């Protein structure tokens, strides 16, 4: 019984650890082809996918962040504006109140002034008229008294009847003179 190994080794006795040059070359070339194909066609695409994905994720996050920031900025801005508006309104109200009070006060004062002015003027004119009347009266009274005295002196003031006639005449004259 011959062993299988001996049977075959008669024809192809190559040891399995001795490489065949043809196979080395084939292995080298085949791997070279695959290396070239993957390097030029597959790897750049995979890397592109990675890059795109990273960018997409980062870009999305950044966009969201920006939107968030803008929204919060807008919110604070609106809140500030609202607070400003409120403050403004309150200020305007206060001012109006103060102004109203001032106007009221001013009107009151001016009315009072006007009143006192009118009163003073009236008083002054009354005084003046009185003074005038007084002056006129003094001169007239003097003249009348002189007139009366001359009449009394001119006439004999001997009796009561005469006396009273003189006075009555005097008064009548006065009436007429008027």
């Amino acid at each position, binding site marked *: 019984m011959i062993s299988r190994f001996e049977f075959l080794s008669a024809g192809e006795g190559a040891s399995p650890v001795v490489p065949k040059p043809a*196979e*080395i070359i*084939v292995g080298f070339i085949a791997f070279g082809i*695959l290396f070239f*194909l993957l390097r030029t066609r597959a790897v750049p695409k995979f890397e592109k*996918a990675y890059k795109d*994905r990273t960018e997409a994720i980062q870009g999305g996050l950044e966009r969201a962040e920006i939107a968030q920031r803008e929204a919060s900025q807008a919110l604070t801005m609106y809140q500030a504006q609202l607070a400003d508006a409120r403050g403004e309104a309150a200020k305007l109200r206060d001012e109006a109140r103060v102004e109203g009070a001032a106007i009221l006060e001013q009107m009151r004062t001016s009315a009072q002034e006007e009143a006192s002015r009118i009163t003073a003027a009236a008083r002054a004119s009354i005084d003046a008229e009185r003074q005038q009347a007084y002056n006129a009266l003094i001169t007239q009274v003097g003249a009348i008294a002189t007139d009366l005295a001359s009449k009394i002196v001119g006439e004999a003031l001997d009796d009561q009847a005469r006396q009273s006639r003189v006075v009555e005449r005097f008064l009548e004259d006065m009436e007429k003179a008027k």
Partner: protein
Amino acid sequence: MHTLLREAGNGFIPPSSADFDFPPIFGNSILFTKPVLMVFLSVIIAASFFIASSRKAAIVPSKLQYAGESVYTFIRNELGRDVIGPEFMRFVPFLFSLFVFILVNNVFGVIPLLQFPTMSHIGFPVGVTIFSYICYHYVAIKKHGLGKYLKDICFMPGIPKPVYLILTPVELLTYLVTRPLTLSMRLFANMFAGHLLLLVFTLGGEYLLMSGILLKFLSIFSFGLAIGLSFFELGIQCLQAYIFTLLTALYIAGALADEH
């Protein structure tokens, strides 16, 4: 061949290294044997799969793209980035092709009809190893210059002088001979042994099936074991592709490092 021998009246003939020899398919051309054609087939399969899966380069990957990307990402990050470091991107295409090429050729060993790991022909691992060998030496020479590179190999810094007597030959041997030798041998031997193991159980099962009624039942166990071992082999095939690529990455990392 087995049937032929069996008809000649022999008993069970265990598989041997001769089972790894294939006659030329056309005439006497050494370029048209089953393993050679399978190597080219592996190139077609791997290239078309990865080119097709990466073609769209979509942000949201399809199933195909996801499958291709998973393999690529694994090599790129686990073997490229984590082993080689910052300059890893230059070597990713090489490591990726290396892994894919060896993996497909190994896995041929358990693919029905093909059922032969091409890497069990040592010529193919040697052909690939030449690439790794050139690569890590080239990288080191380009980075450090030939003189400094040789000096670094021969005279490891920080060692007492007399030790160089032993260390220098060992280091030289490691860099120039042992590394490529073990790289191709490891891959070849694993695939060879694995395939031989499967042959033992399938051919054994076949033999038992052809034998007496009692032995026919025993063939079930033999075939069962062959199937179980096929899955085991699948694991080893992937592992070996990984180890080959990992070691190449480590050698490149060593070549890039400032000191050895």
